[in-house]
């Protein structure tokens, strides 16, 4: 099995992405939001570039994005969640096969990916056979601030993000402890906690540069940490490696006394970090998702001009050191 080695990715302006940032393989989503192409527009063309569309919600900026990716020579496919899972594993294998004599560099723009897709990519990376060194940069173009959408009428899915991230429990007497990333959707986290019924909850709160976002997060989760939850842990939105260090420490602590279940809501980058942490502790840590799917009103999110991310190295014979 391959060993995963997370590493920092220095945040930068989108406009500063340069020739040195070229990848052997680059993967992103062809979605309805404008920012789906923001990183691709600034990156040098990779040897294997793919933009994968969704069968539904082909609206808002979808057509413009499709035109861009076509003109830029990206491989384009429309895949549903079930089709994407095997596809990405095969795509990664094909990219790795072309990297002869040098470590393979892959960029993955998660900005417009669903949590299901992020999970499939992380699983594919974690499950590579380790026959070649691999460096994966998970990139994220944060959105310019917009007001939260009204809550959807229903949740269509709340459960493990995939079988790989379902977790595996050896002792059901141990308490189920949820580590919950909150966002600014009103009472969404509280409702999810209510549904999951963990015995204890640790709350992770994003800290962004936009004070309006922080205010909305606080309003949407009034008192969630006042009682019944342990003290909130803050994480910097623009530094996923620091977030990973904090989450990994929290998860390791929980593993000593309970069954961790990661429940990432809010910014997508936290979902990515959750999945990397779960992969590091596989199979002891579950990652769930809460999704209203097509009931969520599509929003044409625009990138705010920066890019940050998390690097994950995959080594054949690495010695894993504690992250913290």
């Amino acid at each position, binding site marked *: 099995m391959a060993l995963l080695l997370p590493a920092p990715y220095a945040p930068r302006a989108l406009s500063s992405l340069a020739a040195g940032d070229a990848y052997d393989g680059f993967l992103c989503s062809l979605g309805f939001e404008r920012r789906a192409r923001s990183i691709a527009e600034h990156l040098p063309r990779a040897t294997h570039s793919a933009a994968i569309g969704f069968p539904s919600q082909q609206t808002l900026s979808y057509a413009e994005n499709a035109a861009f990716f076509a003109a830029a020579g990206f491989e384009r496919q429309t895949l549903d969640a079930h089709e994407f899972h095997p596809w990405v594993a095969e795509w990664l294998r094909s990219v790795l096969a072309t990297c002869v004599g040098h470590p393979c560099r892959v960029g993955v723009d998660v900005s417009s990916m669903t949590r299901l897709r992020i999970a499939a990519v992380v699983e594919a990376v974690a499950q590579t056979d380790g026959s070649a060194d691999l460096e994966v940069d998970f990139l994220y173009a944060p959105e310019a601030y917009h007001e939260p959408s009204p809550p959807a009428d*229903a949740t269509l899915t709340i459960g493990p993000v995939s*079988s790989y991230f379902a977790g595996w429990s050896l002792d059901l007497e141990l308490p189920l402890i949820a580590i919950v990333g909150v966002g600014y959707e009103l009472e969404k986290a509280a409702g999810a906690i*209510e549904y999951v*019924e963990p015995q204890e909850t640790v709350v992770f709160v994003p800290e962004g540069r936009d004070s309006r976002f922080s205010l909305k997060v606080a309003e949407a989760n009034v008192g969630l940490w006042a*009682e019944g939850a342990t003290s909130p842990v803050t994480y910097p939105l623009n530094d996923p490696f620091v977030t990973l260090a904090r989450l990994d420490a929290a998860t390791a602590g929980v593993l000593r006394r309970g069954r961790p279940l990661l429940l990432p809501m809010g910014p997508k980058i936290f979902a990515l970090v959750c999945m990397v942490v779960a992969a590091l502790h596989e199979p002891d840590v579950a990652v769930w998702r809460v999704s209203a799917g097509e009931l969520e009103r599509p929003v044409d999110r625009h990138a705010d001009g920066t890019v940050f991310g998390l690097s994950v190295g995959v080594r054949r014979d690495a010695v894993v050191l504690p992250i913290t």
Partner: protein
Amino acid sequence: VTDFVPFGSFNARASSLGQVAHGFVPPDQYWTLIESLHVLLVGPRGSGKTTLLRMLQSPALEMWDDPRAAEARDRINYTGVFVPADRSWGAQVRQIEQSLHLTDFGVAAFTLHALRALVTAALERTRAPRGDVPHKRVALDRGAEERIVRDVAPLWLINRPVGSLEALRLALSDHLALLGRLARRAMRMRDEVAREELLAHELLDLELLSSAVPFVERFNAAVGEDEGTWAFLLDELEFLPQRLRAEIYAALRGSDRRFLFKVSLAPHGEVEQPEVESSAVSGHDFRLLTLTYAEKEQGYPFAEALLQRAMRDRGLSGTPKELLGIGGFEREADSWSEHGHAYGPGSSAHRSFADLATYDSEFAHYLADHNIDLSHTDEIPPSQRAAVLRKVAPLVSIRLASLSKGQRRRSRKSLAELYSGTHSFFAMVEGNPRWLKAIVTRLLATHESGPIARSVQARALEEAAREYRSHLRSVEYEGDIHLAGEQSPHMLLERLGTFCQSRVIGRKFEPEPPLTFIVDDAVADDILVTLRVLVNFGVLVHIPQPQGDDATGSLRNERFRLAYLFAPLYRLPLRLGRAVNLSSVLAAPPPPPVEQLGLLEGGDG
């Protein structure tokens, strides 16, 4: 703003066994549960199922600091083996089974967990008691312990030497780890060979009872209890694989005196439970215990005891009645002593009736139709007072409090304040310990002494209802996505609530508005899925038919009411009300917003 306190933080599994035992207040059902019978314990989330099962374990009984603990210890002459399950575990197993197209994987995993719990319970019996009075403690010498595990280990497919109960338990954990590894490998390799290897593994052939027998026989013999009984306490049966549920239902008919099954289950669970009716008959082989209270008064004693306990734990003296006082719906009774009945001229009820009749012509017609002259209520025979006045008193209060601002008098009770007071509080918490504790925590967070103002009570109750309703948005909706706006759990509650509301404060005065629903044959199957969720979450309360007690079978032709917790959100009286076919409610156009309901132009709720 009252601090938000998650309902889920009052989950019994969140607490150590010592904490559970310390705060335990037994409902009446506990004294039936402890009998040497198979029991199916049915209740919605938060109704105390886990607590009740955990309070059958010896350590909990030893730590229970209550005068009635001695009786419980005397009557519980079996060893409780608590086997937890939860949604997270159920999802793990389901993901693997779906991914690999397996059916028996979850059964094998649960069997290993249950055997592990069996060994844990046996091990516990050999240790020092947790309290002053021991329960089922035994001395087991090292040689006997070694013989038990040496004999049992190979039967449980443990192929390495084990010399203690602790080692036996660890070996079962290793089995579980192996099972997980095999499953993950099969999923990773995505080939039939790895799947077949998992399918063929002998761990998948382990059966719970046939595996438990040799252990129990040997342990019983070693401690000199040949007739010793072991009770499997299986929590949250709905999260177990279907085949396992069927086996457990069959075991409820079992006559092996060495084993009892006491299992908890969501009412009309999130999955259908047809096996209950066919394989075991309530009252014959096992007892069905429900933890809901169709008639609100049935839950009052338990709610009162829970509240009294919560007050004691916070150092508050007095009684719940002194803390919460008399509520808005109850105040009419004040006038009894003065007037001989509650509706005499000058009484608060009389003032309310007269006040409403001034503004509400439909209500005035109702009085006239029944030949009621409010200036001569003393002359109305008691039977007519009850049939015509008393039964509509709560409706009068609600309609009066719902009048528009221009029609409002300062002296009237506000809509919010109606939902306060001891009996309203007891009714609204529905005998649900988790609801009660969540609300009491809000109420008592800053309370130091004396009664709690009715407005404070009402606000806490309404906030709790609003939050719980909001949380339904996070419940998985499995119906037609295009109908989620009408049929998701959150929206269906809204639909039912606003329907009842429109009949309580609509233009037409209905002395007996429909407040309960019969799931008639015309209700689509899709709706049943959501209804089951609402029942499981305690949002809908089952009203058993006179001769029936089945709370687990089909929803069809069963009657339900909205939990009284939601009454303030929809301005509903805390009573059963008339039944109406659910299909007719769903077929009717959604009622207009409360401001447009007719005569009543919206209140202050």
